[in-house]
């Protein structure tokens, strides 16, 4: 059952991602993106990362996508759509390269995931952490212990982004 669900979610996620790129209207692109993010959240649930799934829905599929939608509507981007000036050739080349990489990876991994499972034997540790600290604690603890540097740097990154956005958006004096 989880396998079937995984393939459904994966298919929707990949299909949505393709839809984001090929659809003509920005609003349609956005809705495809919501589908991709929501099905990624579904995959998180299958991996027993319930907290991540909830955050994914709340923050990305919810808040950020609504913001995107507002911006698109405020800027009135939905109407004067122009085709990519490079035409179809660039698109075909892009898809060919992506497909080539995907196909090569699929062929290499087709023999089974035996080599990967030995490497990524972290599943048991995650289960133990979930049992001990719960879904939120299992993320919060490493965030403030093992990954404290990364966490603080993310804060600095957000500060830089905010300062930069304001510096550029301020009226030129």
């Amino acid at each position: 059952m989880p396998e079937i669900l995984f393939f459904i979610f994966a298919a929707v996620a990949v299909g949505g991602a393709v839809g984001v790129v090929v659809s003509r209207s920005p609003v349609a692109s956005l809705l495809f993106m919501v589908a991709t993010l929501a099905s990624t959240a579904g995959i998180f649930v299958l991996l027993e990362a319930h907290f991540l799934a909830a955050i994914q829905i709340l923050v990305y599929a919810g808040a950020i996508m609504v913001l995107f939608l507002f911006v698109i509507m405020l800027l009135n981007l939905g109407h004067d759509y122009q085709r990519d000036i490079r035409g179809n050739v660039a698109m075909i080349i892009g898809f060919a390269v992506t497909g080539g990489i995907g196909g090569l990876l699929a062929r290499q991994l087709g023999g089974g995931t035996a080599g990967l499972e030995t490497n990524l034997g972290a599943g048991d540790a995650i289960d133990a952490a979930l049992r001990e600290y719960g879904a939120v604690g299992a993320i919060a603890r490493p965030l403030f212990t093992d990954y404290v540097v990364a966490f603080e740097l993310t804060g600095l990154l957000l500060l830089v982004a905010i300062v930069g956005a304001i510096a550029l958006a301020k009226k030129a004096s």
Partner: protein
Amino acid sequence: MELDFSHQAHFIVALAPEIILSVWGMVILMIGVSPRHSHGPEGSAAHLGWLSLAGILAAALSNGWLYSVTEVGTHSMVALDGFALFSNWILLAGAGLGILISQDYVRRQRLQAAEFYALLIFSTVGLMIMAAARDLIIIFLGLEILSIAVYVLAAFNRRDPKSAEAGLKYFLLGAFSTGFFLYGIALVYGATGSMHISVIADSVASGNAHGALLVFGIALLAVGFSFKVSVVPFHMWTPDVYEGAPTPVTAFMSVAVKAGVFLAFLRVFSVAFVGAYERWWAILWWLAVITMVVANLIATVQVNVKRMLAYSGIAHAGYLMVAIVAANETAAAGLLFYLLIYTLMNIGAFGVVILVSGQSEERLEIQEYAGFGWKHPWLGVLFTVFLLSLAGFPGTGGFIGKVFLLQGAMEADLVYLSVILVLTTVASYWYYLRVAWYMWMRDAPDGATDEPIDVSLPMRLALITGVVLVLYFGVFPGATMEWARSSVSGLSAVGPGLTGLAP
């Protein structure tokens, strides 16, 4: 003092320069919004410039103090080895000189001084984090901190549409290349089960890593790094962005950003992936060759000096790629040494370009330099020294740097690569010396505006520091080279050289 990173407080010690700089940047932002400064026009900008420089000096002091601290093991997310500390000197030098040459520009163009200096400081923090990172996630965060700050700095001059164009181009292409970088990290994690460089190195060396995933991961990481250091064919953005961005920002981008990303590039490829050397050396070998040849050829036909220096920056990325391909200790030490020299000489060259371009930043064509040397002998001599050093003339630091790079390449038996490096260097003499020729051998055209050039104190400091050090390294390179060499000996897993693999 010994750090084993068993407690989070140890990170506060290990990251002291970065923390000092970050806090300093925030203080500068706060001063910038205080009523006295947001309304006071001219003077406050200069104060903020000197204050930022004081921050850089404070970080440099703490960096010197860190030599008394040793780390135990290589398991922490940030390294505290000689390589990281030497990198910090290079990056702090780049940032300090960048602040010095920006001061006039910021005042003249009435830019928002507090935000300008704060973003410059934050991007330096990102660079230092990248150079010290031992975890791909930390490298990624450092890359993003520096990139976002520099995107904004490139678009910082709001009165110049070219600056906005530069910022937008850099942002769109940079965001795209970030995708490659992140996907590469994901694939490497999939192949090795870790994002920590030491663990990846063990996994790759033992052959446990999944082959296909690892190769794709390495390839995508190489693309991400190559974009940021502007290696051909990922250089398309460089000339436009360098030309459009405010000149001090261009100078900072061309030295500090390039240095920081190259240092992370070296650590990732010659520590984490050294076990898979025979899989990636050929592709980087070709990138180095294409970069050296193409960039030097295009640079010869440039008539805009800023654009010429942009292509010269790309060419230097090619020379530095040679050190990455060689992947031995000599080459790593050579890379450190060369980046230090490159920072000094390139900032110096851009400093003179800022002075010549004048108030409105219009005089950038090579004709503007006709007769410049005789009108302003001091500046003419300084610019000539910087150009000769960029070209790699004997007696200057640039020459010694190239010699060390060649030494590293020869130790790895990269004969063809060394020959190409020498040949392209000789070709590059043409476009560097052409500017010098215009300065000294051509008379100024009649009716040329004879604007007096006012060299302010900060600019003087930057130019004199640059020229003194470039000549010092050119004549007495021994001590510094020894220092660079002992710095990389801490880079435990730098490869055995893997000789005999080159064509």
